[in-house]
Structure formats: structure tokens, C-alpha cells
């Protein structure tokens, strides 16, 4: 189950979560090293968001622990950043892309102080990297879904995080912007960061991730997409394999992902423009 890695950025060790008497996560263990883009796949209710919440310490696990570069997360918060799900953000606040990026500097700036020149420079560099500097004065609530995600990634970069978590990264992002966002994530991975994302879009995961964690309360499979995104795993995850992008029975998904690449799942319907 556990990916071999000598120096993992994130180690999830036997994490079990019981909420309201229901087992949500059952002894989940995996490692993710630097230079890795891990996709977490699984049906609704599989515990993906719960797992993310445990990793970023929004939710204490019932058992088990999460280590960031070998340290408990409480001592390594600066290194972990979280791109929130769309509905967790209060879009009524008038925040420009630059404002949001500067929030990443909050802990570095410190209490009762205002961001200084170094913070503004870090925010500018981050916005340039995600190619949103030209839109720095736009209100994030008025940006498209993909642009918003890029701004939140910029916030993570301004924070100096080297582990990025994106829950439902592609929901509300239109098909054209999905590619741009995924290319950005690949670029960040190549710079040495660890990216963990969840999405319903298995074909994108197959093409862009180098590790896939198949989760349905427990870890069904974890490893390179070509090895783990098989018909058997899909059957275990979803009860059927019609989620596969091409109907190639008995072969791995990624072989087809390259050839066809039709996005599947609910995310393709999201128009992703503007606030609700």
C-alpha cells in the first residue's frame, strides 16, 4: 500500500477517522515525496475530503498521525497549504487576486503588523508564476473557476509551502482551464513540490499524476496510474467501471487516457464563471 520513498514530504500513518460512530477512514497510510503529483480518486463519501482535512490538521484523526518532513503538522504549518473547495470560501468579501495572495504571508508578517515590501514582492512573484499578475486587481469573486484556483495556488506559493493540497481541484473549472491548471501543477511538481489533489476526473488524474491513491474508506490501491487505475480497482471503488474514459476492458486506464482524454465525471459540467 505504501509507496516506497526515502525522504517523504508527507507521511500519512495508519490514519483512522470515526465520526458519529461511522468509520470514515480506515487505517489509511501512504507517503508522498518531493517532485510528486498525487491524485486521490474515489466515489463520493469515500473520505477524500476527510483525508485532506486530517492532513492539513483541520480534523484530528481518531488514530494515526500525519508527518510533514518528519515533523508533526503543528510544527510545519508554513510548509503546507490548502486550496479550499469553492463553497468553503466567502466570495462576498471584496478581495482582489493580490489581496488573496498576500493572505499567504499572514503568519510571516505576524500579528498587528502589515505586509511589507518583501511580502509584496513574494506575492508578485507568486502571481507571475501562476500567470495571474495581469489580473492582480480583479476581484476573485469575478474570476473564472480556473483563475480562482490559480490565485489560491499563488497564495500557497507566497506562503512558501512545498506541500499543496487541492480538494476537488477541477470542480467549477471549465475544460480549457483544466489543462492550464494541471500544467501549472506539473510545473510546480517539477520544481520539487509535493502536490496532492482530489478530483472526480479520472482521465486527467491518469494523464497528469505520477501517483494515484484510490480511496474508499481504506486505501484500495496506491501507485503509478498505469498500475493502479485498473478495471478491478474501479470495480472496487465505484462498483462498476463505466468511469473509465475508454472501454478497454482488462487494460489500465492510463493507456487510454493519452489516446482519448475525454474528461469524465461531474467536473466537466461546471462552467466555473463568476459567483453564484
Amino acid at each position, binding site marked *: 500500500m505504501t509507496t516506497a520513498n526515502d525522504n517523504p514530504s508527507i507521511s500519512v500513518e495508519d490514519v483512522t477517522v470515526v465520526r458519529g460512530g461511522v468509520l470514515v477512514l480506515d487505517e489509511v497510510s501512504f507517503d508522498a515525496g518531493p517532485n510528486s503529483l498525487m491524485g486521490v480518486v474515489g466515489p463520493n463519501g469515500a473520505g477524500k475530503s476527510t483525508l485532506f482535512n486530517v492532513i492539513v*490538521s483541520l480534523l484530528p484523526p481518531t488514530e494515526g498521525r500525519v508527518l510533514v518532513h518528519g515533523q508533526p503538522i503543528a510544527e510545519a504549518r508554513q510548509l503546507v497549504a*490548502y486550496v479550499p473547495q469553492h463553497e468553503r470560501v466567502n466570495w462576498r468579501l471584496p478581495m482582489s487576486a493580490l489581496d488573496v495572495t498576500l493572505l499567504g504571508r499572514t503568519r510571516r508578517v505576524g500579528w498587528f503588523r502589515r505586509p511589507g515590501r518583501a511580502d509584496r514582492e513574494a506575492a508578485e512573484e507568486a502571481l507571475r508564476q501562476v500567470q495571474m499578475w495581469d489580473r492582480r486587481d480583479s476581484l476573485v469573486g469575478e474570476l473564472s473557476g480556473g483563475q480562482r484556483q490559480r490565485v489560491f495556488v499563488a497564495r500557497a506559493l507566497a506562503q512558501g509551502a512545498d506541500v499543496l493540497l487541492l480538494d476537488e481541484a477541477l470542480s467549477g473549472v471549465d475544460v480549457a482551464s483544466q489543462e492550464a491548471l494541471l500544467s501549472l501543477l506539473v510545473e510546480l511538481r517539477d520544481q520539487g513540490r509535493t502536490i496532492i489533489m482530489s478530483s472526480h476526473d479520472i482521465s486527467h488524474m491518469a494523464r497528469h499524476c505520477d501517483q494515484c491513491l484510490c480511496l474508499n474508506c481504506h486505501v484500495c490501491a496506491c501507485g503509478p496510474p498505469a498500475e493502479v487505475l485498473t478495471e478491478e480497482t474501479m470495480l472496487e471503488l465505484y462498483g462498476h467501471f463505466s468511469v473509465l474514459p475508454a472501454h478497454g476492458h482488462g487494460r489500465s486506464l492510463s493507456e487510454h487516457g493519452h489516446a482519448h482524454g475525454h474528461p469524465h465525471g461531474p467536473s466537466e459540467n461546471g462552467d466555473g464563471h463568476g459567483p453564484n
Partner: protein
Amino acid sequence: MDPISQLFLEPFQYSFMLRALIVSALVGIMCPVVGVYVVTRGLGFMGDALAHAVLPGMVGAFLLGLSPFLGAIPMAIAVALLIGYLVRRAGLAEDTSVGIIFAGLFALGLVMLTASGGIPVSLEDLLLGQVLGTSWNDVWVTLGLAVAVLALTLGLHKELVFASFDPSGASVIGLPTDALDYLLLGMLAVVVVLALQAVGVILVISMLITPAAAALLLVGNFPRAMAVAALFGVASAVVGLYLSYHYNLPSGPVMALVASGIFILAVGWKRRPAWLAQRRLATSEE
């Protein structure tokens, strides 16, 4: 004295008008500064409820011969924290928790007022505000608390904004979001009680949300919206006070009316015809 000076200065030959002006201006600044959070976080009903729920505290303080602040401020903070706690822990919907507490305490206040056989303040003054009745003591308390609230909102600006905009992201980087929420509720409680002097229980909501909503319509930047909201708030309070003096009208309702008028103008400006917006653009480009 020329007529203009007379219009503006004549009211201040009475020291009660000077005190009223100071208190109104402070309320006009503070309410909208906290009000931009109230509007963007949907806390309007909460603010309204706090104003009603402090009635037992105020009546109690009057009965004991104390300053109404001494009853109202601790009561408002306690109620705000209690509502915050109920919403988090008891699993009740926010408007239900707020409604239960607000109605129960307001009713208790009304019963206390009647059963006590009378206090030195009329129910009408409590409900509609009586800024002309403020003492120097009230002025100093208002000034001190206004400075404290402004210092906290400005000093903790980025933390309060982060926790309001993206609470889970704020928790992830280790900000104490629960404490920041309670702080905001506590400041809301203080501001509501101070505003009671000027506009009374029923109209507190107008000072709290109307100038802030007008500013947020016009300005797409949180700190600037705060400044513009404060400007609208002061304008509402001060213009309202002058109008009430010169036309012998109750001050609280006139302040609320001016705030509403500013809001209507802001909506009109926001929806101004395209030719007006374009002409202004053309002029500024020249």
C-alpha cells in the same frame, strides 16, 4: 452670526448638542467599520438580535442606579458568545439560535420594565434612541470603546479578513479562527450597545448595515470599503442630528433615514445609465 454659521454652529450653544454630536460621530464611524464584516459575513440578524437582547441588562442597570453600559455591554458580549457557541456546538441553525435568544431576552426586558414600576428612561427612548440625553460620562465611555474597537479592527485586519474570507485556509496556517470569530462577535456586541444611545434598539441595524452595504456597492476593496462606510456612517449621524435639531424631529429615525437615502443614492450611482458612466470615463481619459 451669518446664516450659514448659524445653521451649523447654533446647535452647539447647548452642551447636550455637543455631546450628542461627538457620540453620533463615533457611532457613525464604528458601526460601519464593524458593519462591513456584518454585511459580508451575513451577521445582520445577529446584530439586530443583540440590540434587542441587551434590554434586560439595560433595565437591570437602571434599576440598580448604574450606567446602562454596565448592564448592556457585558450582557451583549455574553449573548454574542452564547449564540456563537450554540451555532457551533448545539447544531441549531444560526437564525434559529439567534431568534430564540433574541425574542426571549427582549420579552424579559419588557416584562422587567413594566414590573419594576418604571425606570428613569422611557421605553420609547430605549427603542428609538435618545442621543440628546447622553452625559459626559457616556461620551468618555463611547470614545474609549471606539478607540479599542478601531485599534483591534485595524491591528488584526489581515487575520480577521483571512478568517472571514477563507476560514478553513486560515485554520490550516494556524490562525485561531474560533477566537477571531468570537472577537468579532464581541466587537459587534460593543458597537451595538454604543449605537443604542444614538439610534435605539430598533434602528441599530440601520447604522450597522446600511452605510456598509452602500460602501460595498461602490468600492471593490475591503479596507477602502471600510473607510467609505465610515464616511457614510458619520454623514448619516451628523446630518441626521442637524436635521433633527432644525426640524425638531427624533434624532435616531432621522439618522436612519439619511443612511437609507445614502444607500438609495449608492444604488442609483451603481446603476447609473451607461452614457453617464461613459462620459465620466471619457473626461478622465482626457
